């Protein structure tokens, strides 16, 4: 492990050059002969009866090939967990992004013009737009065929909270809320479906985050075999969890039209269409009650978290499940009662968005810990140190943390040192005279790696050494911009002693690579790394066996620098020569690697068990300046320390940290859909504001490495832990600066200056 050549090195991204030179093709770049352009007509109202649909004028428009409604779709519903998302709405529209009619024409312009000619008669109905209303027993039902609006309820019970609160010297009860977050990927959704291509019924090309989930949906909608639906991923202009169900829906629509016309159909969303139709991060309402002794020991925590699922179940059951596990934060609490719910509303549906259920709970729980420290007269870091998990601690689910290094103290110390926390905390705690006041705030977290008890957790990969010694890798996990091609190439390159320029990681293709689960949950380095490492090891063993016989060498054989060496350092042959000789001797130089995650368990009734097989730990500290005369907040500095087990590519890890921090700044301070009564008013980036380069603080990305026994080279996760801490850290920093605590996001000009949000709609 000491003389790693590829792993733990900041290797240049293998796909960087193609992307920066414009050679890389994205979903909307594809062109096929005879291709049609698809378009969707969406509802005008968040909740309405569809009384009549007249497509005759659209059909008659020159260049229009096909106009279809829900009636023309073989099977109109799909879903990863609960199959209640509709490809097109039929009798009623239940949220503002519901599509009602789809059509395809010879040109984009013709498709757009024809879409305007579709006549839909609505009866606008009063919908439910607040999950707290939707949960009431007498609330009208959002989803046909259900007896309540509840999507899911995850209880967790540990000890007895009544006893715990009785032991407390201080009890705090606080309510928090978080809002919708749009993924804001640079590239809006794009899909092209080619019918009857290459032995399959349909080939689907596009910006697909999870090819197997999209295959499931398309096959289900077409009532076709999985083997007849082929999904091939194009380069992705960002995803962040956001190109799953909405892409599945788009692919299903295009597939139906492609089969109907027997012509390729391309669909590309405008930014407005993307923001209106696509799912968001769940808004949460959170009630927290915490008890502590006067020495600062936590005695009990009671939590109720209500997530807005919007019109469809989508991934609400799993998103809220992650919230349960992280709701108490990384603290030993002997008595815990947590209830996490998701409810249907006539709002935009909500699903996977980087963080997946943790940013809302982390915001609430780490804001609460800060306030508790203040009430107890303790420093924020001291209260945390008194209660946080250490080696051998038991979690709220009663899982003993002993199979990996529990490194909260290390991440906390390193982040504090980097930003000079103690000195700044002392300074900013004093009376500040100017109108611009500074503050510093911290947050810590633990986060389960990979899917946990959500679903079966397996990944497969293929390493195929070619006869010239170059290597092709296949895996079902997808390069979404996060750097997975590079990381996987590094892992295989390390095993086979081959430089990255000889390795090609193929795009995910569901008809070639083994089904590997979704590229989600910050699981790819861990799961795919393990699978491909296994496959590479198999090939290596085959090559060793061949080399011993072919070249008459004994003892250990070392693979490095594109060659094979004896254990005494004598070069045997170039890797390419060995590959060529082996191929021509009839040796099979490809192998599958299959990795199944370590065992986990979960009791649905009590929330007890081993929800995840390992965890990562992080600490972020924000330093802010608040203009108390205008409400403007500037995040000056951010220290972000994350234990990743082992950084396969340190530059990529830092990139993930920078990106996560920036997304958290956006979430905390400015992102806003302009949502009111089911309508989205901010449908492009002139109004849906995300941070610009000028809004980004100086970020010190600190990589902490405690190799995990189960990880490839000890590696764990980094994508999502980076985004869950910033909200609370910034909120806590603002509280120190101004002396006023906030409980709702975003902390925009109005909240910071006058303590409440304002909206045009009243």
């Amino acid at each position, binding site marked *: 492990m000491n003389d790693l050549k590829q792993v733990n090195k900041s290797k240049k991204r293998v796909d960087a050059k193609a992307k920066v030179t414009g050679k890389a093709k994205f979903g909307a770049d594809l062109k096929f002969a005879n291709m049609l352009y698809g378009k969707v007509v969406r509802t005008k109202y968040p909740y309405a009866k569809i009384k009549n649909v007249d497509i005759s004028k659209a059909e008659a428009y020159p260049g229009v090939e096909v106009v279809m409604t829900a009636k023309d779709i073989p099977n109109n519903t799909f879903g990863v967990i609960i199959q209640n998302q509709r490809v097109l709405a039929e009798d009623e529209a239940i949220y503002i992004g519901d599509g009602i009619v789809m059509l395809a024409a010879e040109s984009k*312009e013709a498709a757009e013009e024809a879409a305007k000619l579709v006549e839909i008669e609505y009866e606008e109905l009063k919908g439910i737009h607040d999950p707290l209303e939707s949960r009431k027993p007498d609330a009208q039902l959002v989803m046909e065929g259900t007896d309540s609006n509840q999507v899911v309820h995850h209880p967790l019970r540990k000890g007895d909270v009544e006893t715990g609160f009785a032991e407390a010297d201080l009890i705090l009860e606080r309510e928090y809320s978080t809002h919708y977050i749009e993924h804001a990927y640079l590239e809006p959704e794009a899909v092209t479906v080619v019918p009857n291509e290459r032995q399959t019924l349909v080939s689907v090309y596009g910006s697909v985050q999870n090819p197997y989930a999209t295959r499931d949906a398309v096959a289900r909608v077409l009532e076709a075999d999985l083997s007849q639906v082929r999904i091939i991923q194009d380069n992705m202009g960002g995803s962040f969890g956001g190109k799953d169900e909405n892409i599945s829906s788009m692919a299903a629509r295009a597939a139906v039209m492609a089969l109907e016309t027997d012509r390729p159909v391309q669909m590309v969303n405008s930014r407005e269409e993307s923001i209106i139709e696509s799912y968001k991060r769940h808004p949460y309402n959170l009630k927290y009650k915490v008890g502590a002794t006067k020495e600062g020991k936590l005695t009990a925590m009671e939590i109720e978290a209500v997530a807005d699922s919007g019109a469809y179940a989508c991934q609400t059951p799993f998103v809220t499940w992650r919230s349960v596990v992280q709701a108490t934060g990384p603290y030993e609490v002997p008595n815990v009662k947590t209830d996490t719910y998701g409810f249907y509303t006539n709002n935009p549906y909500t699903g996977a968005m980087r963080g997946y259920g943790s940013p809302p709970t982390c915001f609430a729980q780490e804001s609460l810990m800060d306030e508790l420290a203040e009430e107890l007269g303790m420093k924020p870091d001291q209260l945390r140190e008194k209660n946080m998990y250490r080696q051998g601690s038991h979690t709220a689910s009663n899982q003993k943390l002993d199979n990996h290094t529990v490194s909260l103290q290390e991440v906390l110390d390193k982040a504090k040192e980097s930003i000079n926390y103690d000195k700044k905390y002392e300074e900013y705690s004093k009376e500040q005279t100017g109108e611009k006041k500074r503050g510093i705030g911290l947050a810590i977290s633990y986060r389960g790696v990979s899917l946990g008890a959500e679903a079966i957790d397996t990944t497969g990969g293929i390493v195929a050494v070619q006869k010239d010694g170059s290597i092709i890798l296949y895996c079902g996990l997808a390069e979404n911009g996060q750097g997975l091609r590079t990381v996987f190439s590094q892992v295989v390159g390390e095993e086979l002693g081959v430089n990255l320029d000889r390795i090609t990681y193929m795009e995910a293709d569901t008809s070639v690579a083994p089904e590997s689960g979704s590229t989600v949950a910050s699981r790819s380095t861990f799961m795919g790394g393990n699978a491909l490492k296994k496959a590479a090891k198999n090939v290596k063993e085959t090559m060793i066996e061949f080399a011993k016989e072919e070249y008459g060498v004994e003892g250990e054989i070392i693979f490095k620098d594109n060659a094979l060496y004896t254990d005494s350092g004598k070069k045997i042959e170039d890797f390419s020569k060995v590959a060529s000789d082996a191929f021509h001797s009839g040796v099979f130089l490809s192998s599958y690697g299959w990795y199944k995650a370590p065992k986990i368990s979960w009791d649905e009734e009590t929330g007890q068990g081993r929800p995840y097989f390992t965890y990562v730990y992080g600490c972020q500290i924000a330093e802010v300046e608040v203009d108390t005369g205008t*409400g403007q907040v500037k995040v000056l500095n951010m220290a972000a320390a994350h234990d990743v087990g082992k950084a396969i590519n340190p530059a990529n890890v830092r990139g993930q940290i920078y990106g996560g921090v920036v997304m958290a700044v956006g979430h905390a301070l400015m992102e806003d859909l302009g949502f009111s009564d089911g309508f989205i008013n901010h449908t492009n980036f002139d109004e849906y504001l995300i941070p610009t380069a000028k*809004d980004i603080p100086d970020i010190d990305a600190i990589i902490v490495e405690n190799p995990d026994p189960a990880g490839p080279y000890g590696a764990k996760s980094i994508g999502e832990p980076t985004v869950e801490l910033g909200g609370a850290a910034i909120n806590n920093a603002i509280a120190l600066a101004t002396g006023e605590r906030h409980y709702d996001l975003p902390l925009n*000009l109005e909240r910071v200056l*006058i303590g409440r949000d304002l*909206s045009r709609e009243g």
Partner: protein
Amino acid sequence: MMNKDLKFYKATKVDEAVKLLADNKLKLLAGGTDFMVDLRNEEDFLNGYDGILDLSHIDEIKKIIENDEHVEIGAMVTHRDIVDSDLIKEYYPALAQSAGAIGSTPIRNRATIGGNICNAAACADTLGPLIAFEGRAVLKSANGTRTMDVSEFVKWPYETGINEDEILVSFILPKPEEGAYSSFQKIGRRQALAITRISLAVKAVIESGVIKEINLVPGSATPVPTTFSKVEAEIKGKQLSEIDPKEIGEKAAEEMIGITGERWSTPYKKPALATLFRRAIKNLQEEVANNG
């Protein structure tokens, strides 16, 4: 969809442009940073027009010219040109600051001051300083030239006093007097590419510590940026050091509400505008004291 029969005209001289305008109904294209967005978003943006007239090749209105008593800023001068102009920075610092606060580098490189004023959004950042500096707009048509005060030019959000056969060719700004000060402040929701939530342009002339002249023009506070004449009257002729900035801030907020009434945004804009006025007066007091 855009009418495909529209003609696209490109003029290289003002005379040529006004002649085209006399004969055709044309939509004027300057830097395009509002034009292109509106073209995409508004179905009827070009309804009723015969074509588009591109002004971006008319070099004679891309200049900043200093005369004895005035500075003339061509309408096709970009925000970038204004930010970079030593002349503007010296004479009209508030205008340079406002131009630098608009959009982002690519926007400032393309967007023109004439376009900013003719688009006439309530949040147009250069409008406040141009009014504060008592600028006049020069309009040309085939029939001749006329000028009007910039403060009169914008009638209502997105409505100006320009006639359909006219081109806005320049702004004429009187040179600053002895003892002139100016400042520009802006609040946005982020550090760049932020529509102004509220802003304030100030121009003052101080003589022996007395406010001889004062123009206070907030942006995004009223439908059309306008001088806050009540507050101005309140402090004009007074000893600067004796003015209570806080009180002026509160009075300015009241003056705003007097114009707009209570709107959804008033609970924020009221204290925020008070802050901007308070700071403007305080900064002026400090600057004068330091120069004094």
